[in-house]
């Protein structure tokens, strides 16, 4: 069998989802953001919600998410995405509304908005990309930075005495009455990606069913900020991040 015989439309098993357009992504090579964008595009396509989905962009690396996924987007001020999503969802109750936020956006400046939107039980989905660092601004310490992890602003490693403990926002969200589904996933290998896809889809379906708010945390890599290769970043994440940020469903009602 020749290569030409295999490369035929009827033999296609995987291609980039059509919702993810051809604009080259500005993310660093191997960044988890691209992976999560692709999953979101795939899920919206599979659900047939292309015309009825509104995403809310954060401030951070994913600030340009609106350029890459062909759905309606709204840009929010730093950390205020869940507040904006609340308004969007209340005005468009039949639409699928989600926010896409990093750890600096969601767990630092936007902690108040995030917790209150989740606690009110708004029917929105919060997708939380946790890479334990401020990627966009040059790798500074974030609230989620691990103890001992070196960043630009804690070059000798994070110390509890000086910087406090890393913030587990997903565990906090799981204790709130307004949330219906809180989970922590990763996208470092094929099995994890499939699980993460199922989790995001479930969160989207819950929000459309009006069950309450959902939080999907994706433990991610930032190979530029961590100063490792994409492959080594995944290893570092498995060895260090997963011990502190344990994967799995925290709440499923």
């Amino acid at each position: 069998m020749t290569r030409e015989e295999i490369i035929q439309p009827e033999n296609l098993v995987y291609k980039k989802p059509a919702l993810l357009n051809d604009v080259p992504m500005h993310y660093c090579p191997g960044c988890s953001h691209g992976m999560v964008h692709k999953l979101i595009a795939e899920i919206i396509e599979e659900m047939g919600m292309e015309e009825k989905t509104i995403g809310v962009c954060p401030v951070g690396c994913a600030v340009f998410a609106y350029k890459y996924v062909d759905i309606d987007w709204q840009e929010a001020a730093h950390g205020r995405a869940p507040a904006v999503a609340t308004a969007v969802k209340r005005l468009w109750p039949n639409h699928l509304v989600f926010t896409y936020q990093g750890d600096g956006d969601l767990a630092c400046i936007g902690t108040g908005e995030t917790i209150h939107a989740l606690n009110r039980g708004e029917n929105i989905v919060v997708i939380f990309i946790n890479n334990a660092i401020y990627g966009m601004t040059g790798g500074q310490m974030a609230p989620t930075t691990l103890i001992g992890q070196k960043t630009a602003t804690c070059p000798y490693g994070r110390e509890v005495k000086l910087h406090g403990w890393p913030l587990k926002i997903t565990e906090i969200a799981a204790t709130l009455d307004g949330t219906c589904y809180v989970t922590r996933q990763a996208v470092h290998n094929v099995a994890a990606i499939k699980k993460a896809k199922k989790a995001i889809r479930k969160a989207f379906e819950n929000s459309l069913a009006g069950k309450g708010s959902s939080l999907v945390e994706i433990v991610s890599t930032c190979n530029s900020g961590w100063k490792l290769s994409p492959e080594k970043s995944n290893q570092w994440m498995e060895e260090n991040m997963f011990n502190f940020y344990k994967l799995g469903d925290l709440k499923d009602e």
Partner: protein
Amino acid sequence: MAKFKGATVVDTERCKGCNLCVVACPLDVLALTAKSVNQKGYPYAQEVKEDTCNGCASCATVCPDGCITVYRKKAE
């Protein structure tokens, strides 16, 4: 057991040479180019083993930029 033959098509201009597909491939079909680069200056992924790919699509699943298209056909 039915045998499958696969083929990958890499969008070499979109590829950023992150190497994740090379790590994900269970049959070591893919590798980054050693000498040539694309217009952005990145080495890109390409098939280096002929007739080995079984079209499992692991490479395309892990590709953060969606550069890889996978085809699979049952071998007679």
